[in-house]
Every structure is written in structure tokens, then in C-alpha cells.
């Protein structure tokens, strides 16, 4: 559905996107991750034909985004960052205008607008001025606009930014439902969201692609970020030393409260020192209050991939 080959965007003085290549197959839901300023929005803007690339090619549904821009755009629904809308129009008026602009046949406009109003739960608000809607409602209007011509591909730039947890959940559910028959490219930095929705993740940092894989595979490859938390009551003075000496432990931090100590052990890849710790505790009669092995999350992977240089 999306083919990106050596795409580069250079601005005077800096390069926003460097020579990236990736593909998105039909029906995939791909999360596009990266810190702010990594080049996510720039890439999305190039894919939607808003920005011309400095070099390289990209195509959508087989149409070159620059040479055959209009045909390519016909196949995609785009929700830009911060959801720009005409605040002085009414919801149904705006959606009818957008449907007509995107080439929905005159006789079908009413039906399509009705469908997307239903899908995005905007029936009650169809006559409201967009300017009077809440942020979450506007986000849904933006989504309805992206969907109104029934595109095969949705490109959503941070659709949940600035929403409260309930609204985030609503929008997430909505996107999940949409994903059934469509290809979706979604950028975000809310990582639990990605694990829930996406079949694949592309991590971009400083304009380069750092990883492109399923969330599960990414986690497997980045086990290094494992961590064990051990809580002891009246810990003996040498416990820090003993814990540091265990096999597979990279370093240990101790945090003391009045009577308890909390030890944070960072472990090597694939290492699992929990049973060693339990044996140690039994031998030395430590008063264990808690022992937790925290599995690495996508957040750890993200930090790993996008920190430094």
C-alpha cells in the first residue's frame, strides 16, 4: 500500500528525513514512533503530497506521491497533527464539503456523511459549529473527514495528543474498528497505544529508521532493559555487595527508607537472577518484602533506540 524508497527531506541547514525506506502492506496497522522532531510529521506530510521530497520516491496504492499526486491522494485519508478544521462551519456542512472535494459522487454524499457521523459518534453534534466542540469531538470530526471518501489508507498524525484518558480510549476504539478493512499508518508517542493497536512498529530517530518490526519481536530483541526490584526489611549492610556480585547483574541501586531498602537491579540481556536472589535471601535470612521482575516494555525499547547520539 505504501512504498517508500530512499526518501529524503532537506531544509536549509538541517536534514529532517534522511534516506528512509519502508513498506506498509495492505491491511497492516503500522505505528510510527519517534521523539518529537524525529521526522514523523515530515514523512507523513511527504506521503500525503503536502511536502515534496528532496530526493527519493514514495508511492501510495501504486501512484507516485509527487508525479501522480492527485490519484495517490484519492486513496488516502489524512488527519494532520492538531486537527485543523474550519471553526465557522457546522459539522455536517464541513463533512459534506469535504466529501464533495474528495470526489464522492453527489448522490452518495448524504449517505457517506451519515455513515461517518455514525461511525465517529457525532450524530448529536452534526448541527454544532465546529468551533464550539471539545477537543475530543473535533478529533472525531477530523477522523470523520479522513474517512468520508472511504479511503484504503489512513494516515493519522498523533490522533490522541491532548486528549483526556477517556477520549483517548474512545479514539483508540474507533481506530481499532476502522483498521478492519483498511491500512493505517499512525504516529504517536503513547506507547501502550501502539502495543494495543499496531501489528508493526517503525521507529524513527533523527530522520533515520532505527527499527521496523512487530512489537513482540522488538521486545525480544531488547531484553537488555530488564529490571528486578527487591524490597528488604532492615537490610544487612553487605546486601548491596552480595546482589552486585550475582551473575547477569549489571548494576544495583539502593534506595533507603526508614527501615526498608529498595534495590533496583539492572540485568543483562536474557539474564534472570530472581531465583538466585531468592536462594541468597534464604541463606542469609533476609526479610524479603517484595521481589518483582519487571519485563521490558516498549517504552524501554523506545528509549534504547532513540537515546544518545
Amino acid at each position, binding site marked *: 500500500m505504501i512504498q517508500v524508497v530512499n526518501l529524503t527531506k532537506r531544509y536549509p541547514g538541517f536534514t529532517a528525513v534522511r534516506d528512509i525506506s519502508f513498506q506498509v502492506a495492505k491491511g497492516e496497522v503500522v505505528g510510527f514512533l519517534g521523539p518529537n522532531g524525529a521526522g514523523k510529521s515530515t514523512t507523513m506530510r511527504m506521503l500525503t503530497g503536502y511536502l515534496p521530497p528532496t530526493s527519493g520516491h514514495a508511492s501510495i496504492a501504486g501512484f507516485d506521491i509527487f508525479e501522480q499526486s492527485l490519484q495517490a491522494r484519492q486513496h488516502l485519508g489524512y488527519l494532520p497533527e492538531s486537527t*485543523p478544521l474550519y471553526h465557522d462551519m457546522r459539522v455536517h456542512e464541513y463533512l459534506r464539503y*469535504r466529501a464533495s472535494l474528495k*470526489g464522492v459522487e453527489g448522490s452518495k454524499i448524504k449517505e457517506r456523511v451519515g455513515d461517518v457521523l455514525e461511525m465517529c459518534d457525532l450524530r448529536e453534534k452534526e448541527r454544532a459549529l465546529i468551533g464550539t466542540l471539545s477537543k475530543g469531538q473535533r478529533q472525531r470530526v477530523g477522523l470523520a473527514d479522513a474517512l468520508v471518501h472511504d479511503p484504503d489508507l489512513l494516515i493519522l498524525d498523533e490522533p490522541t495528543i491532548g486528549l483526556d484518558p477517556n477520549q483517548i480510549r474512545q479514539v483508540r476504539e474507533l481506530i481499532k474498528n476502522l483498521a478492519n478493512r483498511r491500512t493505517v499508518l499512525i504516529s504517536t508517542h503513547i506507547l501502550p497505544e501502539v502495543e494495543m493497536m499496531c501489528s508493526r512498529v517503525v521507529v524513527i530517530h533523527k530522520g533515520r529508521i532505527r527499527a521496523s518490526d512487530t512489537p513482540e519481536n522488538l521486545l525480544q530483541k531488547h531484553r537488555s532493559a530488564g529490571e528486578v526490584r527487591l524490597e528488604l526489611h532492615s537490610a544487612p549492610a553487605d546486601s548491596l555487595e552480595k546482589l552486585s556480585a550475582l551473575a547477569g547483574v549489571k548494576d544495583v541501586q539502593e534506595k533507603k527508607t526508614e527501615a526498608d531498602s529498595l534495590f533496583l537491579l539492572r540485568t543483562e540481556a536474557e539474564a534472570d537472577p530472581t531465583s538466585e536472589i531468592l536462594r541468597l535471601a534464604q541463606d542469609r535470612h533476609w526479610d524479603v518484602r517484595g521481589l518483582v521482575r519487571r519485563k521490558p516494555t516498549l517504552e524501554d525499547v523506545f528509549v534504547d533506540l532513540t537515546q544518545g547520539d
Partner: protein
Amino acid sequence: MRTFLTLLGREVKSFFYSPIAYVVLFFFLVASGFNFFSGVSFLNQSPSEVTVVESAFNTVLFWFPFVLIFPLITMRTYADEFRMGTIETLATAPVSDWQIVLAKFFGALFFYILLWAPSFLYFVAFQEITGKQAALAAGAFGGSYLLLLLIGAFYVALGCLASALTNEQINAAVMTFVAIFGFFVTGLLGFILNSPSQPVREIISYFSAVEHMADFSRGLIDSRPLVWYISMTVFVLFINLQVFQYRKWKA
């Protein structure tokens, strides 16, 4: 074509979403009505060779509101879209940049025509009430309104260009006013300068909307202003497209 009409429809309608359109319409109606009234009463004072049409289209009262309306009509066109970010949804819909530029231009021009449309009724009313001719020939009507349309097209294009240069409506309005005022004053140099030489006079007369109107309102339809206004409008729209794409691509 359908896409273009959809865009044009939204441009025209967008004037009426805000109260500014009604305010402009109201004040322009008052100003042009007062202008017509003073044109007729000027003719009432003494015997004169000019017709009502000539006298109505050649007064200071005519030109003053005339140059002021363009910033108001065009300031929103692009500036608002850039400021709100809606330019991104607009330009990523399957529409070409030319369609956007032309829709914005014709949308504003349509509103300009709407401003002038009632003024034609003044002359109809004058002829009905007095039983006298407002102009000696149909060419005077045709010439006046043709020139109004052409000057309007050029100034609207200038206003659209100014609006495409900025995010702020007020900047667009000021730039438009300065540009139009510049052209206007250049045209007036012929009256201000002391006996300019013949070539200078001729160059100045190309800019002089006032001189053009003096000719056209007598039914004297000169091809030079026609070519000047049409070619300038096309040229400014072309620059407008370049600026629009440049700003979009710079984003």
C-alpha cells in the same frame, strides 16, 4: 470542474460565515449610495456636459471607499488557512494548487461583484424617476462596469497574493492597502507632477485607474487598459501560485 466549483462554493460561503461580510456590504452600500446622491446633486447645481454615470464614477467619494474594500475582501483568503493549519487538509485533498488559487481568487471576485451589483439599480431608479438618460449610450454603462470588473480583478489578485504571504489577516490587509495605494498614487502622478514629459505621462497613464475610468465611463473603451489589467491579473495570480507552493513546501 466539480472540484473547482466545490472549492469556489466554500470560498463564497465563507464570507457569510463571519459578520464582516455583512458589515462591509452595509457600509459599502451606504458609501456608494451617498456617492451617487452627491454625483446627482453636483449635476443639479449648474449646467454640465457630463452624464450621471460619468459624475458617479469619477468623484473622490467613489475612489475612497473603492480602494478600501479590497483589503477587507481578501485579507482572510490564505492568511486564515495558514494560521489555522487548514491549508494542510485543503492541500492534501485531491485538488490541484491551481484550483485552490483560482477558487480563492474567483470567490473574492464574486463577493466584489456582489458589492457592486446594487449600484446598477441607482441608475435604473434615476431613469425611472426623472425620465432622463443616466448616460448617453449603453457603452458608458458597459464601459464603467467592465472597467470596475477589471480593476477589481487586478486588485483582488493583489489582495490574495498579500494574504498568501502571511499568517495574519491584519498584515495581509495592510500589505494589500499599501500595494493598491501605490498603484493608485503612481497613476495620480500625472496630476501632481509639473508638466511631465510625454513618455513619462504615457507610462503613468497605464497605472492611472482614475484616467481609465474617465475614459470608460464616457463609453470610450480603450484596449490598453484592458490588456494591462488582464495581463497584470494573470501575472499576479501566477506569482500567487508560486508563493502558495513555496510556503506550503517550506512548512
